[in-house]
């Protein structure tokens, strides 16, 4: 960790130290640039490839920038002929309810665990903490066959019902946990005062707790949104009508269907990435804050 010595914060300043410092600073800049390069180039390669004509992709590498012709044909083809437009819409249909539902349900439960009094409250909450570690895999088989055997009339797996419910339910332990941990940090006086004024729990929840918790709820919402947007596993099991497949499944199909039609794959993968990237760049602060929500203080 000798690189540290060349840091901005310098202890002793001697001429020799200054040289060593400059040298070390160069090492820092070079290694950081290398890291940035390794983390950028693969994605950049995909982006460039997605705009190159098929014949070019087969003939030369994307890094052959002297031979660069750009086209949006790949996108046109993958959106129209390969049904990626429909898949994009399907992803939205799957993601929006699968984000809003758990958000609401978790907030309600988290409020109860923070500010309401009922028997076994702490025990129940410990169970929720325990459920956090239960792998969703243990639920797949009974949930799927249950939809077939117990409620066949609902035809849940033919529509989006199955995937909405599954995403919502499996998101709960974490969501409740996160929001509860935020809610308990709210000043108790605020809530006590409202109670003394005769406010009911639903009123306190709606008028006090939710409004002041918007940042935490938003942070959780972003994560749940990305989680569902990016999910493949649940879609594999719970979305069974081919016309309702989300993008993750559509891309998986592209991969197997055409061997390696790189021009379509690249465009398809970029369409899948675009929304998360926009969320990341526009809501970066929320995003990272959510990640760290109250963690390290």
């Amino acid at each position, binding site marked *: 960790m000798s690189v540290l010595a060349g840091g901005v914060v310098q202890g002793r300043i001697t001429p020799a130290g200054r040289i060593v410092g400059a040298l070390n600073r160069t090492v820092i800049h070079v290694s950081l640039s290398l890291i940035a390069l390794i983390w950028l180039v693969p994605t950049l390669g995909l982006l460039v490839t997605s705009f190159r004509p098929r014949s070019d992709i087969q003939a030369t590498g994307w890094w052959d920038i002297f031979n660069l012709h750009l086209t949006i044909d790949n996108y046109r083809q993958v959106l129209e002929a390969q049904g990626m437009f429909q898949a994009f819409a399907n992803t939205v249909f799957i993601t929006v309810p699968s984000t809003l539902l758990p958000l609401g349900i978790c907030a309600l439960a988290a409020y109860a665990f923070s*500010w309401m009094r009922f028997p076994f409250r702490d025990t129940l909450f410990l169970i929720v903490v325990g459920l*956090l570690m239960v792998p969703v895999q243990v639920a797949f088989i009974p949930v799927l066959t249950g939809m077939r055997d117990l409620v066949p009339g609902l035809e849940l797996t033919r529509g989006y019902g199955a995937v909405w419910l599954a995403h919502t339910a499996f998101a709960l332990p974490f969501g409740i946990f996160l929001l509860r941990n935020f809610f308990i940090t709210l000043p108790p006086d605020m809530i006590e005062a409202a109670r003394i004024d005769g406010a009911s729990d639903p009123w306190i929840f709606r008028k006090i707790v939710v409004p002041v918790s918007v940042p935490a709820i938003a942070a959780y919402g972003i994560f749940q949104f990305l989680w569902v947007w990016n999910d493949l596993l649940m879609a594999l099991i719970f979305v069974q009508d081919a016309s309702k497949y989300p993008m993750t499944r559509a891309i998986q199909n592209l991969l197997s269907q055409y061997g390696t039609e790189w021009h379509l794959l690249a465009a398809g993968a970029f369409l899948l990435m675009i929304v998360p990237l926009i969320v990341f760049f526009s809501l970066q602060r929320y995003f990272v804050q959510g990640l760290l929500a109250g963690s390290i203080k």
Partner: protein
Amino acid sequence: MGVAPQGLELTRDYRSLSGGRTAARRARGPESPRWGTTILFLGPAGLLLFVFLVYPAIYTVLLSFNRGRNGIFEQWVGLDNYARLFSDPDFINLSTFPPSGALWNNVLWIVFYVSIVIFLGLIIAVVAARVRYESVVKAIVFIPMSIAATALAVIWKFVYSPDANIGLINAILGAVGVAPVSWLGDQGIVNFALIAVGIWGSVGFATIILSAAVKSIPAEVIESARVEGANERQIFFRMILPMVSLPMSVLAVTLVVNVIKLFDLIYVMTHGGPGKSSQVIAFTMFQQAFEAGQYGYGSAVAVVMLVLLIPILIFNVRRFRTSSVT
């Protein structure tokens, strides 16, 4: 790469330490419970959790002792499924060196993925803190965190392609006269190639967490150590490292959980291949249940996943309980 939501679990551990205590003291409602309101608030969550998680988990445990064809209790087989699982060389094969099988691959992932992610994360966090463009570097390594594992798989299938017109790595190797390597086609290499993708996807997460931890160390503490003559090496090993060891251990736990649940990346990049050499347990569970229709056997794999996570579960619950009781 799908690590994100679990990433938040990290926060829980800290929160439970600091917030739990206040919870017991502060969180008081009216003296007697109001049942109607309680059910209104807890009902939806309770119902969903029971129907979709608690009851199914019990069902799956029972099904693992059954033949379970078509997901129905059909014929009790005792421990047969487990006996078969642990004698299946595709699941765990200790008779060769190195060992192989899905469970062994998870071990490889835990050893290499977890340690390298933390190591790189810490280095980048510490080093980047010394430059003005720190936030840019952190943002760049963090980008893969927002991307679907499916997209990550496509990106890296490009990079790994044996075709020198497609695959960047083999193009570079070719330029220096090295024969192309079939990164995803060689049974001895494929796991490491996949782990590298996993690392690429998760370092950003570790960087953000550890960077925050490093910054939480008061500058005066470090400065006074310097004044007392400590060199940078000593500062790193004697001060920074111990002070980030807690977030680091929590990070490690989160990454281990990620490994046990790892699925999408493997499914899309190799489908467990070539042959079965890159399977991991979550993949095996999926394949046995939803491809081969062997639900009893698949349930046994799911139960193994659960068992592997139980120590972490107990750890979390215990930690939470001790912190909230005091």
